[in-house]
């Protein structure tokens, strides 16, 4: 893959943990890749299969879903529902012909700013190694990366 490929990764972040952790990372001068585009959610349980598919259809190279640690969801099981949807979606993405590895779910707490930066960096590198979303050339967002 060409070295100048700059992936776009949409990060759906729960406001009770990952969103605050991303904020903490910034406040702590911990950089994470600019490829990460954060969408704040009230809970990862809010994420729907269609939201993730539309992100890919609109040209995202990767999607990161970041929710609370197991047992720490403010809505009890939202992060567990999200995990099940991620498993379903990864299989569906493979059927579609997009590598399911482009989607990843991570669990962190609001205090784990450094860990957020690490996980975000890891996923961006993973997506970079997979190359651009092949739909980029055909989506309404248009131009190749």
């Amino acid at each position, binding site marked *: 893959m060409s070295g100048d490929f700059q992936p776009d990764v949409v990060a759906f972040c729960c406001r009770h943990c990952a969103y605050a952790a991303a904020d903490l990372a910034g406040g702590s001068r911990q950089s994470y890749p600019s490829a990460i585009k954060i969408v704040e959610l009230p809970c990862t349980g809010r994420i729907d299969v*269609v939201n993730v598919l539309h992100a890919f259809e609109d040209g995202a190279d990767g999607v990161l879903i970041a929710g609370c640690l197991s047992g720490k969801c403010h809505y009890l099981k939202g992060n567990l529902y999200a995990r099940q949807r991620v498993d379903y979606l990864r299989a*569906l993405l493979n059927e579609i012909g997009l590598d399911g590895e482009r989607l990843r779910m991570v669990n962190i707490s609001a205090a784990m700013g450094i860990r957020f930066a690490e996980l975000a960096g890891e996923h961006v590198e993973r997506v970079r190694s997979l190359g651009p979303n*092949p739909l980029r050339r055909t989506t309404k967002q248009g131009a190749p990366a």
Partner: protein
Amino acid sequence: MIVAETKPLEAVARMVQGYDRVLAVGCGTCVTVCFSGGRKEVATLAASLRMKRGIEGKPLQVDEAIVQRQCEWEYIDPLADQVRQYDAVLSLGCGVGVQALAQRFPGTRVLPALDTLFMGMPSEQGVWEERCQACGACILDKTGGICPVSRCAKQLFNGPCGGSRNGRCEVDAQVLCAWHLIWERAEALGMTDALMELEPPKDWSTSRDGGPRRMLRDDLRVPREEEGDE
């Protein structure tokens, strides 16, 4: 409710491979509540197909529509103008919905995106179980509200058989023995004596044996004008 599940994406993609413009039509009744053909499932299938075909370099336009019930003319008639603009219609309704669309729009190819499974209910979140086979002669009064036609693998009317093991069916250990349940229910209701009476062979003529069935209600039909006063 009628329970159905989505066909594998590959199978649906194969059905629409020769087309450029497809309308995916969901149904807002049974298949919405069993999460296979509602608004979200239509959006999921449409996006999946668009992406799959986009990656293959053969873009497919998949637009989305949903009607309250695919099995009634009054709900599908408003689709008439829209349907004409597409090469094919992909129905996310049950088999009844697919056939209703095909009958109403004979000039358009109507394709099934779901496999219709059974009449049943969710026994818990995410699990659906069969409860009725529409045999046409209900005997639930005799069996404590538990149907041996749909829930006994052998459709026995004088059970249980020797394959009932600790309340489970020999055919599948996941399945509860219907006759075990019937007996427990009869005990709770104090009706075990009635179960000791031999049930004669069932008359299956009301079931599928006579071909497709029809229900008629003369009092509900649209009156014909020539039927004058008496």
